C-alpha cells in the first residue's frame, strides 16, 4: 500500500496556519523502509515538532525506529506497539502509522521513564514534569503512552495529575502486543523501551478536544468484590472469581482451560465498577486457572460492587459516534486538524473485522477529511474532569483544532 499523504491543513482561521499536522502510513514488510516511508509522508513541512508513532508489534522495532530517524532526523518522537493500527483509510494489523505535528503555533516537550512497575506514580510524575519545558500556549494536553502490563495504570494518572493539576487534560493509551499479553514496547526518540511510560507535553494555539465513551452495559445482578489485591480479583460474592465469571456468563468450554481462549472471551466481557457517575469498565486481561482469580489492567477495590458487562456492535458503534462528537464539541466550533484515537482492543473484539472497518470509517467521517492516527489499546487514558482518568474498554478521541 502506498503511504497516505494528507494535504496540509490551510484551514480558515489565520492562526491555524501556524500549526500543521501531517500523516503517513506504511505496510511495507521491511521495518526500516516502512518507518522511513510513513515518517517521510507525515513530515510535510520542515519545522516538525513531534512525531507520534503507532506500530504493529510484528516489526523489528529498532530497525523501524532507525527508518523513522532516517526520514525525520532529530524530531522528537513518542510511540508504541499496538494491537492494531487505526488510520482514516481503515484499520490494520501490520502497519506503522505516523502523525507529525509542527508549526510555530505549537510547543512540545517529551520525556520517558523505564522500569516503572513498582514506581508507576513517581515515574509518571517524572514524565509529566516535561511540561515545565513547554512554551506557554493557551491550550494544553499531556499525551501518555504506557505499558498496561506494568501495573495499576490509575497510578500513572495520579502521578501525572500531581504534576500538571486540573488545568491540563491527560490523554493516551496502553501499548499493545497483538493480544499476546506478553510484553509491550514504548518508543522515545529512537529508543525502544518496555515497562515504560513515554509522554509528550503539547501546548497549542488551537483548541484541543477530548471525547470518550465505552458503549457497554451490565449483565445481571451486581456482585461484591469480596477479595482483591490491586488489579487481581480473587473472590466475587465469596466465590472464586474465575468460577463466578465463567458460570454467570456461560463461557465456552475452551475458555475454561485455555488461556488464549479465555482472553478471547474476556475481551468482550469486562467488569464494571460502580462509581459516582456510573460504572467504570475494567478489562479482564487473564485468569489464573490455579488460584481461580481474574487479572485486570487496573485496580479493582475490595468491598466494591461490580457487574459483568457486555456489548454488541450497535452499542459500541454508538459510543464511537458519541466520543467523536464530544471531542469535536470541545473544539468550540473549529474544524479538526487531526484526530488521535485510542480504542480499546475489547471493542475490536465485539465489532469483528467488518465492524471495525465501519467504526474507523465513522471516525474518519467525524474527522471531516483531517488525518486520523490511532491504535487498539490495552487501556485508555482520558482525564478531563475529576481525578480518575484511566479507562478500559473505551474509545478516547483526541482532536486537535
Amino acid at each position, binding site marked *: 500500500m502506498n503511504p497516505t499523504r494528507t494535504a496540509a491543513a490551510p484551514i480558515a482561521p489565520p492562526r491555524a496556519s501556524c500549526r500543521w499536522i501531517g500523516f503517513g502510513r506504511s505496510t511495507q514488510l521491511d521495518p526500516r523502509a516502512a518507518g522511513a516511508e510513513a515518517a517521510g509522508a507525515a513530515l510535510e513541512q520542515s519545522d516538525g515538532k513531534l512525531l507520534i508513532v503507532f506500530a504493529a508489534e510484528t516489526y523489528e522495532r529498532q530497525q523501524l525506529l532507525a527508518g523513522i530517524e532516517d526520514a525525520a532526523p532529530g524530531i522528537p518522537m513518542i510511540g508504541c506497539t499496538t494491537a492494531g493500527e487505526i488510520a482514516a483509510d481503515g484499520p490494520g494489523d501490520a502497519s506503522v502509522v505516523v502523525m507529525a505535528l509542527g508549526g510555530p503555533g505549537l510547543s512540545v516537550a517529551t520525556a520517558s521513564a523505564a522500569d516503572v512497575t513498582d514506581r508507576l506514580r513517581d515515574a509518571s510524575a517524572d514524565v509529566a514534569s516535561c511540561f515545565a519545558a513547554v512554551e506557554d500556549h493557551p491550550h494544553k494536553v499531556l499525551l501518555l503512552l504506557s505499558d498496561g502490563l506494568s501495573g495499576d495504570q490509575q497510578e500513572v494518572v495520579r502521578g501525572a495529575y500531581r504534576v500538571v493539576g*486540573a488545568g491540563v487534560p491527560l490523554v493516551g493509551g496502553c501499548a499493545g502486543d497483538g493480544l499476546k499479553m506478553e510484553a509491550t514496547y514504548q518508543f522515545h526518540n529512537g529508543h525502544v523501551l518496555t515497562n515504560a511510560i513515554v509522554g509528550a507535553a503539547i501546548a497549542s494555539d488551537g483548541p484541543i478536544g477530548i471525547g470518550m465513551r465505552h458503549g457497554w452495559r451490565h449483565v445481571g445482578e451486581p456482585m*461484591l468484590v*469480596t477479595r482483591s489485591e490491586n488489579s487481581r480479583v480473587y473472590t466475587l460474592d465469596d466465590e472464586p472469581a474465575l468460577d463466578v465469571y465463567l458460570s454467570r456468563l456461560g463461557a465456552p468450554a475452551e475458555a475454561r482451560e485455555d488461556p488464549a481462549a479465555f482472553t478471547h472471551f474476556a475481551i468482550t466481557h469486562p467488569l464494571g465498577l460502580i462509581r459516582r457517575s456510573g460504572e467504570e469498565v475494567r478489562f479482564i486481561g487473564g485468569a489464573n486457572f490455579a488460584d481461580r482469580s481474574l487479572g485486570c489492567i487496573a485496580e479493582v*477495590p475490595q468491598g466494591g*460492587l461490580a457487574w459483568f458487562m457486555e456489548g454488541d456492535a450497535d452499542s459500541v458503534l454508538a459510543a464511537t459516534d458519541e466520543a467523536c462528537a464530544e471531542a469535536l464539541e470541545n473544539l468550540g466550533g473549529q474544524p479538526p486538524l487531526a484526530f488521535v484515537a485510542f480504542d480499546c482492543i475489547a471493542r475490536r473484539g465485539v465489532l469483528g473485522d467488518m465492524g471495525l472497518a465501519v467504526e474507523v470509517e465513522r471516525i474518519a467521517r467525524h474527522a471531516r477529511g483531517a488525518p486520523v492516527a490511532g491504535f487498539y489499546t490495552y487501556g485508555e487514558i482520558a482525564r478531563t474532569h*475529576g481525578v480518575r482518568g484511566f479507562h478500559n474498554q473505551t474509545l478516547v478521541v483526541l482532536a486537535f483544532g
Partner: protein
Amino acid sequence: MFSESWAAQQLAEFLAAVAATSDEQAALEAAVERAAEALEAEVGALVRHGQLVASVGFPAGYEPAESLVAVAMSEEPTAVIGDLGHWSVLRASFSDPTPSRLMVARLGEEPFARSEAGLLVAMARVLGLTVGSLRRQMMLERLALIQRAIARRAPLQDVLDAIAQGTHELLGDEVVGLRLLDPNDPSMQALRSTVGMDAQQIAAIRRSAVGEGIGGAAMVENGLVVWTDYPRNATALPPIAEAGLKTAMGAPIREEGVPVGSLVVGSYRPERHYSKVEQETLEVFAEQASLAINDARTVDALHRAVDEATHQALHDPLTGLPNRALFVDRLEHAIARASRTDVTVSVLFIDIDDFKLVNDGLGHTAGDELLVEVARRLAECVRTTDTAARLGGDEFAVVLEDVGSDIEAVAAARRVLDALQTPIRAGTEDVIVGASVGIAIASGDTEAGELLRNADVAMYRAKASGKGGSVVFEDEMYQALIDRRGFDGQLNHAIDTGGLCLHYQPIVDLEDGRPVGVEALVRWDHPTRGLLAPDQFVGAAEESGLIIPLGKWVLDEACRQLAAWRDEGIADPDLYVSVNVSAGELLQPGHAAAVASALSRHGLPPSAVVLEITETVFVRDTELTGQRLHALKNLGVRLALDDFGTGYSSLAYLRRFPVDILKIDKSFIDDVAVARGDAALAHAIVDLAAALDLQTLAEGVEHADQVTRLRMIGCELAQGFFYGRPSPPGEIAAVLGRAALPAAPRPALALGSHV
C-alpha cells in the same frame, strides 16, 4: 441510585488507602487524593493549623496555597481558585485539636449531593481522629472491620453489633446501646445492639420513645449530647438511672441527614469525662451506623435483592415470625420428613378471640403490641423443632413435628391457650385475650395446603362452639369446601380444554333496526349439568380468581369471531362486539395491555370492541378504577356501563369515568310502554345521558310497543328477545346478514332455544 452504597464503598476504599500508608504525611496525602477521587473532584486540600498540608489538583510546587486555605476555611458553596473558573466546594471540619478542614472542589457549579457531603464528613472525622493519634491503628482497624462488614453485606445486625463493640473497645465505657426507630412506629426507638447490659436491663429499656433517655435527646438535638450526671436529667430512663449510671453521651444516627436512631455510651464512674476526641469518636461510630443503614437500604434493594426479598417475603415484619409462605414451606418439609420416618405432623391454627375489640378500642399500636406479645409467647411455648408463624391479621399457626395423636395435639393446643392466660400489656391497659385453636393431623398423603385449610376449618368450628377452646378437624367439616373445589377445578378444566363457548345477542339501532353490534355471552357446557349461563358460574369464578383466565378467553374468542365475520363479509364493517368485564379483571395489572394484544392478535381496530362494566365497579370509585378505565379508553375501545340504574351510588362517576354507553337495566324497560312512572324514569335516564353525551342502550326489549316508546324518548340502541335471543355464532351469522331486524312491530325472531 447507587449514591448510598456508593458512599459506603468509597469510605471503605478511603480507609484502606489511608491505613496502608507508612507515615503521617503519606496518610494525609493519600487522604486528600482519595477524597478527591471518591467525589470525582479535581481539587482536594487539607488544611491544618491554618496551613495547607496536602493538596491535589494543581501543578506540584505551584499550588495556590493561600487561595486554597482561604477557600477551605470559608463557607461559600462556590469559589474561584486558580485560573480555571468557578468551582463547587465541599468542606468538612475536624479538630486535631485545632480546627482543620478537608476540602474538595469540582469544576463547575453543580452542587455536591447530600450523600457526598456525608461521605466527606465521615472521611474528615476519621482523619481528625487518626492523625497524631496513638490509637490510630486501633481506630482504623475497628473502622475497617465495620466497613468490611458493611461492604461484605453482613446482616445489618452484625454491623450494628460490630459498631457497638468497636465503640466499647475504643472508648472503654462500661455500657453501650444502639437504638433505631421502630419501622412500625416512628415515635419509638428500639434497642438494636448493646454492650454491658444484662437481660433484665435490656428488657426494661427495650423500647423507648423518641426524646427519652440520652439517645432520644441526641435524636431531638440532632447532635452530640453529653450528660455528666445521668439521673438528674428529666428524660433519663429510670431503669438506667436506678442501675447507677453516672455519665453518658449520645450521638444521633442519621439517614439522609435525618435522625433515625442513636448510639450511646455510659459509665458508672462519676469521674468519667468525655474529651473532645472521645466525643468525635462516638460521632464517627454513629456515622458508621448511618452509612450501614443507608447502605443496607440501598444495597439490599440492589445487590441481593432476591435474598432480601425472600427474607422479607418470608417473615412477618411486625412479629418477626415466619409468614404464611414460609410456614407452608416448612410444613411441606415436615410432611416430607414425616413420610420418610413414619411419623406424623399436626397443625394448630390459632385465631385470637375478639382481637378487633382490642385493635378498635385501644388503637392499632396497642393491637400491634398485643400481636407481638402473642407471637413471643407462642414461639416460647412450642418446641424448637416446631414452627410458629403469623399467617396474617390475628391468625397464627404452628407446625407440630412428630405429633400424630389427638391427645398430644390437643395438649399442645392447651399449652398455647394457657400461655395466653396471663394478661398482656397493650397500650395503657393489661388485657387478657383468648384464642380458638383448630387442630389438623396429617394422614397419609395430606398436602400442606390442605392440612392448613383443615386446621382453619376446625378453628372456625372451635370458634362457633364457644371461644377459647380447640377442635380437632374431621372430614365432614370439609365436605362443603371439597364440593366447591371440585366445581372450580371443572371450570378451570373447561377454560383450558374448550368447554366454554360464546353466544351472541344482537344490538340494534332503534331507528332502523339495523344490527350495530353483538353482546358476547359466555356459556359453559358442563359435563353433568348441561349448558350453564354466566349467572351460574361467573360468581364462583370471581371468588376463586378463575375470572381472570375466563375473561381473557372470552375477550379473545369474541375478537376472533368478529374478525372471522368481518373477513367473511358476514358482518357490517362497523359491527362491534360487546364483552363483559368483571371488577377483578379490570383491576388486574396489565388488563389494558391484554385488551390491546387481543385486538392486535385478531387485527381489529379498537372501535370494534365495547367493554361492559357493571355499575358496582364504578361504585367503588377508586383512583385505581379511574386509572384502569382511562387506560382502556386511551386504547380507543368504548366503555359501556351495564345494568345502569340498579346501583346505589351517586351519578357523579358518570362525569368522572370515561363511559360511552349507558345500558338501561331491563327492570326500567319492562313496563316502559305501560307504566308512566317507568317511562318517565327511562326518559330521564336518556336525557341525562344525552346531556353527558352518552349513548343509551335499552336492555331486555321484548315487545314492539316498548320499541315505539323507546324511540319516542330518544333511546338510540336496544337489545332483547324482540330482536333476538343470545345464539350460537352459526345462527347469529344468519341474522347479521340481513339488512335489518324488526324495526317496527313484528314478531320476535326465534333464533334458538338457549338463554
